């Protein structure tokens, strides 16, 4: 607050010579060709502009104009055309569930997000949240708050190491711990603020309100499935850890469910999202399988399938079970591949999986499936390896 007041005074002094008018509030960061103002904001933008140059040319960016254009269209519908003009969208090949937006308007969406949002409304909820961080200058505030707190912590460290009395040194250590806690608490407060503003945008755009809490409910279910699959303890959602950067998923689901209680149905955009990601879904699934997360992946495939498993998902499920490779998994995998083939008899990869699963399980009939695979794909890159397995 004192900082704001000082800015206001400076601004007033600047315009005094021209006209004795009230200084205007700073422009929003999305305003056309916005230039960052304070020393901190300019420094941050300089650093992020440089980082964006690297990001733009990175091999990890999925250079698919259709998908990027779709994300952009959803963002524009959510926050309005005027606001979305100040942003650039990058889809990054990363199977984790995440999206981020930097203070200079770079929106980064992980491919893993597309696997986890059920419909366009959920995508809009995430994009609205990220945009809120940008509009509210959260990155800048976090930087400034962290700097103040680490400054205090550094001084407290010196006092704690000094020859002061035990009481004073002990108090200094306590203060130092609180400043570190404050950095994370500040982050969490801004996440809550972004949740609220993002929700406002997404609801105003006519999207289905239920999407807001549902994402977090399923995120908890997936995390639990992952933990169960890895024989770990489930996460606790009823209390915050000292270093948590976000409120717990349970807290977010709870307050968002409270917010949308009593609201009617909105536009889910279910088919629009499915159509947009369809051409790339196979690649996203392949990346998910490489995470070596049996429980979480099994949960995710179930969510994607709903009550109708398609050939691509059945084959992916076969790959998941075959990779774990217990004798019973090989039987299950062969079953999934057979179902995939029943739905799509031209699926060469399903024949490959079926053949390998059967051979590994001691069933010589697998050779027939492998022969079918080679017939369906004459230019198979692993032809030599597969032929070595044939009698």
């Amino acid at each position, binding site marked *: 607050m004192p900082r704001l007041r000082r800015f206001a005074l400076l601004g007033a002094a600047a315009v005094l010579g021209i006209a004795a008018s009230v200084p205007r509030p700073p422009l929003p960061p999305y305003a056309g060709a916005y230039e*960052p103002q304070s*020393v*901190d904001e*300019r*420094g*941050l*933008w*300089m*650093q992020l502009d*440089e980082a964006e140059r*690297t990001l*733009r*040319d*990175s*091999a990890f960016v999925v250079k698919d104009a259709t998908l990027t254009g779709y994300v952009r269209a959803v963002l524009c519908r959510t926050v309005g055309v005027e606001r979305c003009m100040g942003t650039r969208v990058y889809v990054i090949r990363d199977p984790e569930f995440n999206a981020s937006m930097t203070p200079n308007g770079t929106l980064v969406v992980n491919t893993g997000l597309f696997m986890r949002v059920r419909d366009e409304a959920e995508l809009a909820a995430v994009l609205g949240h990220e945009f809120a961080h940008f509009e509210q200058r959260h990155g800048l505030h976090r930087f400034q708050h*962290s*700097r103040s*707190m*680490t*400054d*205090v*912590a*550094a*001084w407290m*460290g*010196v006092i704690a*190491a*000094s*020859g002061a009395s035990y009481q004073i040194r002990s108090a200094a250590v306590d203060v130092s711990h609180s400043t570190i806690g404050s950095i994370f608490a500040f982050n969490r407060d801004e996440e809550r603020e972004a949740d609220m503003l993002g929700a406002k945008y997404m609801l105003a755009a006519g999207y289905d309100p239920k999407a807001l809490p549902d994402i977090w409910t399923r995120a908890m279910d997936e995390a639990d499935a992952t933990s169960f699959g890895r024989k770990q303890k489930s996460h606790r959602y009823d209390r915050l850890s000292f270093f948590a950067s976000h409120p717990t998923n349970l807290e977010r689901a709870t307050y968002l469910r409270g917010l949308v209680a009593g609201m009617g149905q909105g536009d889910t955009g279910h088919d629009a999202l499915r159509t947009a990601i369809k051409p790339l879904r196979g690649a996203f699934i392949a990346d998910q399988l490489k995470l070596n997360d049996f429980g979480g992946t099994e949960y995710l495939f179930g969510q994607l399938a709903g009550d109708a498993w398609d050939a691509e998902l059945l084959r992916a499920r076969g790959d998941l079970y075959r990779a774990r490779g217990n004798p019973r998994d090989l039987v299950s995998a062969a079953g999934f591949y057979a179902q995939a083939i029943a739905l799509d008899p031209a699926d060469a990869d399903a024949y490959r999986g079926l053949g390998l699963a059967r051979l590994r399980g001691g069933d010589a009939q697998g050779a027939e499936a492998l022969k079918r695979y080679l017939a369906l794909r004459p230019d198979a890159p692993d032809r030599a390896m597969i032929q070595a397995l044939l009698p």
Partner: protein
Amino acid sequence: MRHGLFAAALAACLLAGVPAGAQEKSGSKPGFTLPPGSAKILLIRPSITVGAQSTGGMFEPNADWTAQARDNLGAALAVAQQGLGNAVIVAEEPIGPAATTLAGYRALFSVLADSVIRYQFFPGNRLPTKKRKGAFKWTMGPGVAEIAKGTGCDYALFIFDEDQYGSTGRKLLQVFAAMAYVTVKSGEHRGYAGLVDLRSGDLVWLNADQQMGGDVRTADGAQKRVRQLLENFPGSTPTAAPAAR
């Protein structure tokens, strides 16, 4: 057991501090020379970040200082070209797939430079394959030639520079911390310059300094910095360097 581990960790910490002073600053491929006026060198967009260091030690990027440093270092490099005795061509920003290729090699070079600094310049930490005396065997692979396609360049020059100037608060903290017998470092000035043979992809020269002098925000300081960065540059005659002043 726990006590033994603690003692081992303490010993490791103490030992780690010792060879740091003996750390080497530069290396070049054995037998590599660059006769003056013989080569065309492609200068890749230098990575430059300048800012302050807050009291608590956070980096505060400063746009003005960075812009000044970019200008000053660019001018100083142009002057130093005479000292190099070779033609230096500033790489243009590519578009399309070429941009992805260049970004990939820039990233690869930063990893390579970090590896050389960690595993070659620090003699106590050399990898088994880097232990032979006088050996300097690092490469990016011949594919790197692609970034200089059409320029006719023989070598690529990569430059990295990061400056954190200690703020007033940091300096005050340093003084008071010293009274409590705690060492606080104020400011950080790191940089490296490396030359890559575009035909073989081999790293032929790298100079890395973790404590450089010269204030890059001023023209004179930037010249001093560039002289330090290009110190021991193969082919630069000892008399040529002062001429760049």
